[in-house]
């Protein structure tokens, strides 16, 4: 089973205009672990990256860790990276050959998923609750003239978290990406960087699936179950801790390096050669 990752630099440049694109050390080591684990337990990986992100990858010769290689992507200019900061994922999904697993760079999959995905068309890591502060009534979005939500969409369908998304069918993928992009294009300019993004990424997909009568398999039905499972590591909000708590960051990086060393010696060699991680190789 194939998997793929994506890196889009535009959201980065919104905050750090004066520097080139870089991945933080904890992002980098997590990606290495993720790729190593996926290649070991599931299959070949590929990276899609825009020009600046690709430069970062190639400067460090990281293209070698993806057994299906890397490919440059061009995310449409009209996607506002401040609002749709995960727009690069959808572009990468559009380019990927299916079936495949879309994996966030902060997600590690520790088990073989083949058996569990064999009979599925669509699979996600978990479903989300329809909390109105995060998933408001879609009709409350200020849309440009000419946009209409498809009549067959049922907005009572629970959103699906796509930190890991398995898609089998290219036709479904095409419709999902097309509708997500259409929503992005027609949204009036906004500073809300949460609700529109999660609508496009996490709500349109299961809504289309439901309209088409396709089931969406979730590894966890409730988010609480994530704390009891042994398949996924998702850094999620922990990245904020790593960002502001250097003590924690240091120990996390050391732990990751140890794990690489213990279980993925080839990837460890790559990690040990990276300047970003040299201080944590103990």
């Amino acid at each position, binding site marked *: 089973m194939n998997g793929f990752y994506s890196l889009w630099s535009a959201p980065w440049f919104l905050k750090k205009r004066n520097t080139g694109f870089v991945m933080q*050390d904890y992002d980098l080591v997590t990606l290495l*672990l993720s790729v190593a684990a996926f290649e070991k337990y599931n299959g070949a990986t590929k990276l899609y990256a825009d020009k600046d992100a690709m430069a970062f990858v190639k400067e460090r010769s990281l293209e070698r860790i993806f057994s299906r290689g890397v490919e440059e992507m061009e995310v449409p200019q009209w996607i506002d990276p401040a609002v749709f900061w995960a727009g690069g994922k959808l572009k990468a999904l559009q380019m990927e050959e299916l079936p495949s697993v879309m994996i966030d760079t902060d997600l*590690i999959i*520790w088990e073989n998923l083949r058996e569990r995905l064999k009979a599925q068309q669509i699979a996600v890591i978990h479903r989300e609750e329809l909390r109105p502060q995060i998933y408001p009534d879609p009709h409350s979005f200020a849309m440009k003239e000419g946009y209409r939500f498809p009549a067959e969409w049922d907005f009572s369908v629970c959103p699906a978290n796509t930190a890991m998304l398995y898609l089998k069918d290219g036709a479904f993928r095409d419709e999902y990406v097309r509708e997500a992009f259409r929503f992005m294009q027609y949204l009036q300019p906004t500073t809300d960087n949460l609700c529109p993004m999660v609508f496009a990424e996490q709500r349109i997909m299961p809504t289309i699936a439901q309209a088409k009568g396709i089931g969406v398999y979730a590894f966890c039905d409730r988010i609480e179950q*994530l*704390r009891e*499972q*042994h*398949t*996924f*590591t*998702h*850094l*999620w*909000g*922990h*990245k*904020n*801790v790593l*960002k*502001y*708590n*250097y*003590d*924690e960051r240091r*120990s*996390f990086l*050391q*732990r*990751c390096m*140890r*794990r690489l*060393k*213990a*279980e993925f010696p080839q990837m460890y060699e790559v990690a040990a050669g990276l*300047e*970003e991680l040299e*201080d944590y190789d*103990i």
Partner: protein
Amino acid sequence: MARNSHFFVLKYLYICPFTDKEEAMGKLFAWLDRTGGETVRDYDNRINHLQAFHAGYAFLSLENYHKELSAFAAYAVWNGEFNEKLDDPLPPGGFMLHCDLTTAQKICARPEGFPVFVKLYAKRGHLFADEMTLAAEGQVFDFYFNGCEVIPPEHMGLVFAGARKPENAHYDECVQESSTPVAGKMPGVTGTTAGSYSGGKMLPGSYWHGSYWKGSYPKGRYQGGSYQSGSYRGGAFATGSYWQGSSAGFGYAGGFGLGSYWHGSYWRGSYQGGFYRSLLQGSYIGGSFQNWWQFFGGSYAQARFGIGSYMGGSFRVFFVGQGSFWQERFGTGSFGMGSFRLRAFRKGSFWNNGSGITFLSLQKESMPLADNGAKEAEAKTETSEYADVERARHRYRYIEEMGYGLDLI
């Protein structure tokens, strides 16, 4: 209780009106910048050997105290200029510290906030906040970010607003207005701390306020340790009446304590001419650079540099050839990481017997690792033991809920 929603909008958006703010604010932490001729490695070395310094204040209130955890969720206000220099500027919320209820009640009786000291860490030219401590009631507390939720304490309104009540007369010098934009602040922390002066001591936040210092205080009221915790602004000293009165210098030599800062502009004309100017201008001093007068007067052998002292710029030239001094006086870890490089010191022996070497050895011994060629099983065992320690620490700090499956690594 830990959640990832720790960005808050400050309820009390009161801001000090800086008079000469742009210029002065830009200079206060200039020593955190890379200087023109400084390589990335030299910069990292310099920063990594600085002592922790005063970078902000934490406001505590009992409504943010969790008895079941014996911990405070703290609201922090950072020096905006300092914060802007960090690669990842620190947020106001999400910090925690542990203390028992008795101590908590004692701490909360003081509404002005407590100084937070930050150890900096530089890597490849990028600046990060490392370990943080909070000083309160004669104790030092581990102050760390775990993303916890915090309610901005109500009493911050008083401190921030500088309410002009008789009992708060000492706040009057800091006239504050709401929504005045101030450069270099975190979103949600646009309010800088109020200038607050009381009884001859600098209270938290005073160093933000430019107008506060302008010659308005009588001579000699700030003797001794009143200035500790880095409560200085560059330009203010040049005109402040206090400094003219006590320019003999010796009286406050010890007052430049933890995190003190002074800038060339302070020295211009106020001190003994060109010698000091050339020595100090453009230099940076972080940490406890003590007894400086003796140092500058040439009797360097009697000078003592506290832990974490650092000198740069023209000091290096000054010390060329005086190697024995360093060996005798810097053996406390100040430069003891084994990687600090100042060619001007020219004393290899310091590095060989400094505590830094010992530190590195201890670190390796206390964290047994498999060699490169060790069997995987051994490495896994060690990883597992290490993970146990990590898990225990996470539990203590209530960090584990911020992601999931973290213990699978």
